[in-house]
């Protein structure tokens, strides 16, 4: 019989056990993370328990005591202490209660990190031309989105990235899809991430940290529509806009062409009205002008008539008619009596004739 050293024995046993990969279901207890690097907990049922170990960077779910999980991994020993540990490779959450707990834990974590912050939510453009679509080609969600986009809007280019929308492959696919859009310059106006309804487990990919972070990291605004109206996933909190259903997502992204045609007609109508109003205003100015011209002419006429009567009043004959007379001597008007001598014959002009007289 071979004689082992203690170290050799521990190593040998560890090697033997490590070949086994199993799935064990149980309840999490005494969960802790040490030095931010090592994750320890126990998996138990009502009779027994064993120790579990994994590195913190391999932990992709928020674990808490009391959660039900399925662990995929291998048994083994720590070669130094010979203590048994189950090396965890994958953790699957089990049961509605556990999923809800996980949901709340992750929600709190992402919220504290600012992934849901209102101020980082982007607005969607009024008239999109290029949109990304991430969903499964076979799903009703795909058909719904396509139908609504076709009915409502025209001239769109839809960049469709088919993904699986359920299970572990969904997580990987969706992350790849966002990475693809981030690294290709399609100048998208928005990305629709959608799938139809299902159980909480069916929709689980949309509640994982990885998918949430992929949505958060999208260079284009994301509209999420996962499941039915009542289903809320963590992705919905991270997305720029949350739609209740796949159809609703399409409605949010594009306006209805009838509404826009109405708007266009309204704008043209208003332009016509502006032109009419302009013409109208020019006519009024013209009217005002001719009116003031009339007034000017009238007042000029009045002035002229006034001057005419004034001129008339200066006519010397008018004066003569009032009893004045003009005296002339040899055709010249006499204003000075010293200019006349005795026996000069003077001429007196009256309004109706003249009189000759001799100066005494």
């Amino acid at each position, binding site marked *: 019989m071979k004689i082992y050293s203690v170290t050799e024995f521990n190593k040998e046993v560890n090697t033997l056990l490590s070949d086994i990969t199993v799935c064990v279901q149980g309840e999490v207890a005494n969960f802790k993370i040490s030095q931010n690097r090592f994750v320890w907990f126990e998996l138990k049922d009502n009779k027994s328990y064993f120790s579990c170990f994994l590195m913190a960077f391999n932990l992709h779910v928020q674990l808490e005591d009391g959660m039900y999980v399925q662990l995929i991994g291998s048994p083994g020993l720590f070669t130094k202490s010979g203590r048994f540990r189950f090396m965890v490779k994958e953790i699957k959450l089990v049961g509605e209660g556990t999923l809800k707990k996980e949901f709340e834990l992750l929600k709190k974590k992402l919220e504290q990190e600012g992934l849901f912050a209102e101020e980082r939510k982007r607005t969607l453009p009024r008239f999109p031309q290029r949109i990304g679509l991430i969903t499964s080609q076979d799903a009703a969600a795909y058909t719904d989105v396509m139908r609504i986009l076709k009915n409502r809007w025209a001239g769109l280019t839809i960049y469709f990235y088919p993904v*699986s929308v359920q299970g572990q492959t969904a997580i990987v696919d969706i992350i790849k899809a966002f990475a693809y859009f981030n690294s290709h310059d399609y100048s998208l106006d928005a990305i629709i991430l959608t799938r139809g309804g299902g159980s909480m487990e069916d929709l689980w990919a949309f509640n994982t940290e990885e998918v949430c972070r992929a949505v958060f990291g999208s260079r284009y605004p994301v509209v999420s529509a996962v499941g039915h109206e009542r289903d809320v996933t963590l992705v919905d909190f991270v997305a720029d806009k949350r739609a209740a259903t796949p159809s609703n997502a399409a409605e949010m992204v594009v306006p209805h062409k009838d509404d826009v*045609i109405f708007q*266009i007609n309204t704008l043209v109508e208003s332009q016509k009205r502006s032109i009419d109003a302009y013409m109208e205003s020019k006519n009024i100015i013209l009217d005002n002008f001719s009116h003031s011209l009339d007034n000017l002419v009238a007042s000029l006429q009045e002035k002229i008539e006034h001057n005419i009567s004034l001129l008339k009043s200066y006519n010397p004959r008018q004066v003569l008619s009032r009893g004045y007379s003009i005296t002339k001597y040899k055709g010249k008007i006499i204003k000075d009596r010293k200019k006349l001598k005795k026996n000069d014959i003077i001429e007196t002009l009256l309004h109706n004739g003249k009189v000759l007289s001799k100066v005494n």
Partner: protein
Amino acid sequence: MLKKDFNFTQKFNELENITQELESGNLDLDASLKRFEKGLKIAAELKKRLREAENKIRVLKKNRNK
């Protein structure tokens, strides 16, 4: 077939701008009529686009699981 680089947003914005310019009344009659004519042309283009253009689908990657 409509041009590939048709920019709906840009044209719609221009239509709105023309409407504002005309409403402001700062243009003379000649300029107003020219802008109005341009507006009519854009409106017709936009409506034609909405009535006639098809949506195009580009599938980016075959789903390897199917």
